[in-house]
């Protein structure tokens, strides 16, 4: 379904590329396709902002399951070529989302948008650690499943 949506919305701007051990080895996803995934809201604080914020987006595991992803690792890349390796387990142990909105507003590309990997930092004490903080990839553009 996602594939179809991506193909149909060929004119729309692709905002996320997924490659690696998934169905069809590479997919390009636009905003509309991502909107089709079940929407999740997450309330948490971040290390780069003050106070708590409400993030809306989809669960990473929902996307990975749709794409039939098989692997141990997800390599996330940002627009500025920032690259981190995220263990696949993170997405199943915690409700990690890819947020496309914050406090009811869409995330603009010139401010951490359009996509931002957000961990439920306030819900799990273990996540309040710098080894998780660097996995919060903002201006996310590419996921590679390994």
């Amino acid at each position, binding site marked *: 379904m996602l594939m179809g949506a991506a193909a149909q919305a060929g004119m729309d701007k692709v905002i996320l590329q997924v490659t690696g051990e998934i169905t069809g080895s590479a997919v390009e996803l636009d905003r509309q396709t991502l909107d089709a995934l079940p929407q999740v809201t997450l309330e948490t604080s971040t*290390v*780069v*902002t*003050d*106070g708590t914020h409400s993030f809306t987006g989809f669960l990473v595991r929902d996307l990975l399951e749709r794409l039939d992803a098989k692997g141990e690792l997800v390599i996330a890349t940002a*627009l*500025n070529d*920032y690259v981190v390796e995220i263990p696949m387990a993170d997405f199943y142990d915690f409700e990690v989302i890819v947020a496309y909105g914050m406090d009811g507003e869409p995330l*603009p*590309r*010139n*401010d*951490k*948008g359009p996509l931002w990997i957000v961990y439920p930092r306030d819900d799990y004490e273990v996540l309040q650690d*710098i080894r998780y*903080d*660097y996995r919060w990839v*903002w*201006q996310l553009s590419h996921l590679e499943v390994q």
Partner: protein
Amino acid sequence: MIRFRNLAFGLLLPLVAVVVFAVLLAFSLVRMIEIENAMRVEAEENMLWVLHQSEVAARRLAETAALIDLGEADTDDLALRFDILKGRVAMLNDGPQRRFVEEIGYDDELEQIAASLNAVAPIIAGFSPGDGVRLRAALEPVPRLFGRAANKAMIADWNDLGGRLETHRAQLRQITVFLVGIMVAGGILAAILGGALRQSRQRNMMLRRSQDFSTLLISSSGEGILAVDRVGLCTLWNKAMVGLIGKSAEQVVGRPLIEIAGFFDLAPLRTGVARALDGDTWQLALQPLFGEKDAEPRYVDLRFFPMRNEGEVIGAILFLHDATDRHAAQQREAEDRDRLEDLVAERTRDLDDALRRERSAADLYRNFAAMVSHQFRTPLAVADSALQRLIRRGARAEPGEIVERADRARNAIAGLTRLVDSTLDAARLDAGQLGAQRVRCALEEIVRTVCTRRREAAPERAIHVRRASQDSDVVFCDPAHVEQILENLLSNAHKYAPPETPVSIYLHDDVQNVFCDVHNTGNPIPEAERERIFDRNYRGTNSMGTAGTGIGLFMARTLARMQGGEVILQPGREGVTFRMILPRFDAVPA
């Protein structure tokens, strides 16, 4: 002083050590929590990286502008690079990052950069070839500003890190000191604990030793020892108790005392136990303790003591001492005393008898004198008067008269002779010179001989003789003695019976003996005198005024007994009957 030192060591020192231990531990904990909190390195600390990335983003934006001029990039790339840079700046203006920038004094520069970006935004939106130079000139100070900010951030970071490390070191030094203090306090506590343990072990050992000693004493004691608890259940039962009661410790421990043996259910025992449980000491002496059926009872002394623990009575202890030997000794002593008393009484009786005999001997002499004066004088007077008459008559005397007078004199002399004989017989009897010559005799013949003689001496007195059967009078006796006995009995009858009444003799027998009853009609002999009349020199109350020596019956009985016979006074109120008993000849073993 020692007490105070004990108190200081026993209580104060450990208390102080514990307080020091706790305080130092609390301080250490506080310090460590402080360090732990300081260790939480926040992402905001990583400003060097953020500024460096911002510088890179600025340089890449300028680079992309140049590439467009060369035709190697398009406006989309330029827009992306511009957005990325704007995103960086937006981030630097956000919360913690903004505060850091202000801290290092670069907020003005950041405003300057933001203003520059706002200024170039229209150029980027409507980029046309040739704008590149303008754009680069406008962006020219931005990377430099980011670079200088990064320098400053690095210096601030390192200064901060240095300060933090210094603080940590100081805190760690403090913690080390605290730990040393904790170790010292712990060491003191451990030493005190060790001392207390050793002391307690020593006390336990001493207690065990004294316990072992007590157990040894109790088990090896010859006395029976048992203990009961507050409700009367047996808690201790030593070996001697097993011997006394016959039940083993396994059979009795834990059971009520009164169920163990009937002995403990006796009222004095129950009282003793109850009193000991009330806190009193109590004892019982020579309590009989019955064991096996029909066996002799043992006798035990009991002592009851209360057992106390810190003043409170927690039970009672009983000591049973086997006093059977003592009891037996007491019994023997009592028996000996009784025997001794009997002996003394017997001796007293003997002495009394001797005294009485002595008195009777004195009486004998007195009586003898009286008898001599009376009995001897009468026949002598009779003989003298007969002879005087003969002398006075002289030649006138007729031959018949002479014979008659001479016979009277002779008879008187003969009586006198008999009197002397009997007196001598008694003396011989006393001297043991009188023996019995026992032969086969026909008793009736002897009776008839004696009767004939008596009739001659006293013709006025009738004597009737009869016998039960014809052939049963053969006796084994000394005829002279039997004659003497009969003489005595007949003379007594003559003396005490009224003159006109007859004396009857009745001979009869049984398997063993032949009896000769001599009966007269005189006054019956009072009951109190019936046995005493056989005593030597005893004269009954009804013999007053009658001549006699008090020897006749004594002689008669003594002579009869010498021949295995007897003389008794027959009971009855009709007159007086003496019975002579002699053994039948055929009844005497050869």
